């Protein structure tokens, strides 16, 4: 039986928030042993939650993804089941140590001596203040791979800048390239592409460094600026400026490549009257032949027969009209039923899916994308997302449900680091080994 690609690789995970924890999750999915270091006396906001200690009032009115805690209660240990982050802790180990003093740093040093990779995504300066530098790591393990993911990079005028994904996208130009063409950007909703691209590419960079180490026996320092990793999402706009000095602007849901019609159109869907409105189908007509097929599906209405609509170029000039007419046609249709009719005719279409409906989607069910898990703090059994890697011979999956804060303290201290029972008891008494954040942490 073949092993997962990163079998035998140990990663010390010093990351927080979203991009870093996503990167280490991918490495864990691919077989690495990822050991997440946590500190009972410090919580970077937006790591395992907006804050450690929550009241019910703080959750009121918030979004599903930010404030949708189990049964709308913060519960005894909210950091273990924050909806934004909980799933990123699957397949990982977690242990606690306070690394603000020499005793904790010694524990970290002993762990690093038995590891292959160290990853972090704090603001520049934070690791240095703790004494964690590439040189220090090399002194412990000469072939160590150290991956750092600062927001803007460790050099340059913005190196001290703090940001989340949405701010990086503002800086690099995505915010002004998306949204409604007739409204200002304050009408847009935040996206977090930079978290996605930084997480996937940091995992990729570490894999490349492991590949390199296998050939050369050398480790290295990786630096990924989260802002820079997200720049390729605007490739066409960048190339348009670089080649033509043409500045693109937001075009909403329309196609960069002139496919027309291309948009989202109102639909009905089953449910209570309250739920059945506000549903939309996304449709892209990618060729003249597909336009012909769409005309037929609509029953070849008078307006669609116009010679003005035969070619994509001509349709692109009349998109307001097309959108209005199509919306009249789709308004009485069920979104899923219409998807099947359009796809059968060779036209790209699917509902713009509200999240709760994703759980019942036939494709999602057929591929078993969400699987029931019970986490350490038993808040109930829910369906958690699975890895997006589908390998036939080295299958990935959830081999360990999302790990609770400090859940693997015994394993990491005793089996990995080699701490004796006596030393373990002493470190526990000194406050390093816990399964909760200290009351002093907000």
């Amino acid at each position, binding site marked *: 039986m073949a092993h997962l690609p990163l079998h035998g690789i140990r990663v010390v995970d010093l990351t927080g928030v979203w991009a870093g924890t996503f990167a280490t999750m991918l490495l864990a999915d691919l077989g690495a042993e990822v050991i997440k270091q946590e500190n009972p006396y410090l919580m970077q906001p937006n790591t395992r939650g907006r804050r450690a200690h929550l009241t019910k009032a703080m959750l009121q009115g918030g979004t599903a993804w930010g404030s949708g805690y189990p049964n709308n209660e913060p519960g005894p240990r909210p950091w273990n089941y924050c909806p934004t982050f909980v799933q990123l802790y699957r397949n990982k180990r977690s242990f606690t140590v306070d690394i603000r003093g020499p005793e904790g740093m010694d524990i970290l040093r002993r762990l690093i001596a038995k590891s292959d990779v160290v990853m972090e995504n704090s603001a520049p300066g934070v690791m240095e203040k703790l004494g964690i530098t590439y040189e220090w790591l090399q002194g412990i393990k000469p072939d160590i791979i150290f991956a750092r993911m600062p927001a803007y990079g460790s050099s340059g005028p913005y190196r001290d800048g703090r940001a989340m994904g949405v701010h990086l996208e503002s800086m690099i130009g995505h915010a002004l390239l998306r949204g409604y063409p007739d409204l200002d950007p304050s009408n847009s909703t935040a996206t977090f592409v930079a978290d996605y691209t930084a997480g996937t590419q940091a995992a990729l960079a570490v894999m490349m460094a492991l590949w390199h180490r296998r050939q050369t026996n050398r480790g290295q320092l990786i630096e990924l600026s989260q802002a820079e990793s997200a720049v390729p999402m605007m490739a066409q706009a960048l190339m348009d400026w670089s080649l033509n000095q043409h500045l693109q602007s937001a075009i909403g849901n329309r196609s960069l490549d002139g496919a027309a019609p291309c948009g989202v159109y109102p639909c009905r869907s089953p449910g209570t009257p309250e739920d059945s409105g506000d549903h939309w189908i996304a449709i892209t007509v990618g060729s003249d032949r597909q336009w012909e097929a769409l005309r037929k599906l609509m029953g070849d209405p008078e307006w669609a027969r116009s010679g003005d609509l035969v070619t994509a170029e001509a349709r692109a000039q009349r998109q307001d009209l097309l959108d209005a007419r199509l919306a009249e046609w789709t308004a009485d249709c069920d979104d899923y039923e219409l998807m099947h009719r359009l796809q059968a005719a060779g036209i790209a279409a699917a509902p713009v899916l509200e999240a709760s409906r994703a759980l019942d989607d036939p494709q999602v069910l057929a591929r078993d994308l969400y699987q029931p898990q019970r986490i350490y703090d038993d808040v109930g059994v829910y369906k958690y997302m699975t890895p997006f*890697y589908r390998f036939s011979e080295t299958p990935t999956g959830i081999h360990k449900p999302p790990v609770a804060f400090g859940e693997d303290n015994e394993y990491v201290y005793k089996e990995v680091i080699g701490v004796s029972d006596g030393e373990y008891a002493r470190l526990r008494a000194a406050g390093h080994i816990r399964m909760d954040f200290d009351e002093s942490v907000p």
Partner: protein
Amino acid sequence: MPGPLADLTILDLTEYIAGPYATKLLADYGANVIKLERPGGDPSRGLGPFKGNSKHAERSGTFFYFNTNKRSLVLDLRAPEGRQVFLRLLDGADIVVESFRPGVLDRLGVGWDAVHARKPSAPLVSITNFGQTGPYREFRASELVLFGFAGEMYSMGGQDRAPVKMYGTAAQVESGSAAASAILGAAMVGKWQGVGQRVDFSLAESHLLGVDRRHATVIGYQFSGRKTQRRAGAGVALGGVYPCADGYVELAGGAWFDRVIEMLGNPAWLRDPKWLDPVAQTDPALIEEFEGHFYEWLLARTRREVLREALQARAICAPMFTVDELFDDPHFIARGLWARAEHAELGAFAIPGRPFLMSDSPWELRRPAPLLGQHTAEVLREAGYSEGEVQALAQRHIVEVR
């Protein structure tokens, strides 16, 4: 210093955006990526923007960006002899990556069975819209359809308007970025353990199971019964998009509001502890009070002035720049983000360079995106074909030599 992947050879049959971006990331770090193009080329050669705005297969900016550091070989896989050429190239390769609809490669006779029989250690990575199985496996997709269905589009925009997507092909770039690690993972198992395998990578799943919020809305709904609402902003109290003297900035208050107070110069009106109370922060009256002062502060400052004060106070507040401003930005210039490309049809121009820095095996623009069939003869000679054989294949239109 060579890139880390110099000993990895990839036969790349992918087209359009996601697959080519995945293999570009690997090619940019040294992998030997042989792009096998159908006669006429990857259809993304027909995607704009084009240099000078006139459509031309060698002047696509999109094709250029997603295909740097690759070599192009034009091969007709519909011909039996084309299949033989593919199998001979496979002898010298480590992995095959493709993005045809499920079943197409099998029908061409170069699917999993053929690959595995010829080279048992070689993985076959298939990148498709919805995956190799399930009721949607044959479905068509577009950027809009993909992001609408699998991404978090439903939540984006205003409640009284239709949902609105991200820019261009941003969702497919996210997917390609994820697919690169699937390819390299499979290559590790192939090269290090001698085990080839099929990898079924679905663009839709890279969003349903990725981190741009969809994963969190699905679990958050199950936890709490909360459905997704469409509303503007970032969901951070005392934050969002605000106008300033010459444009807009994006601010995060919330848990970081202490730094906003510092950025604003610790004024008297911000001394009340209510400003740091997470419940009070969501009170509309408090937000109105904040904005009354904040607009005044912002409108007296340009985006660059706001940025300077945000950096000093370590506040989370970023200007919204345009793409031309990004090219001219002193930070990214100082860091060396931009690379200089040269191309026979496009001339010399700047492109975004390394996505990340590697101290011992750096990124390098070794060659521009290939012209169609530019390396057909070169690659065939490396595979042991004689000059005469190459010419004969070209004459029979099995390959195209530039």
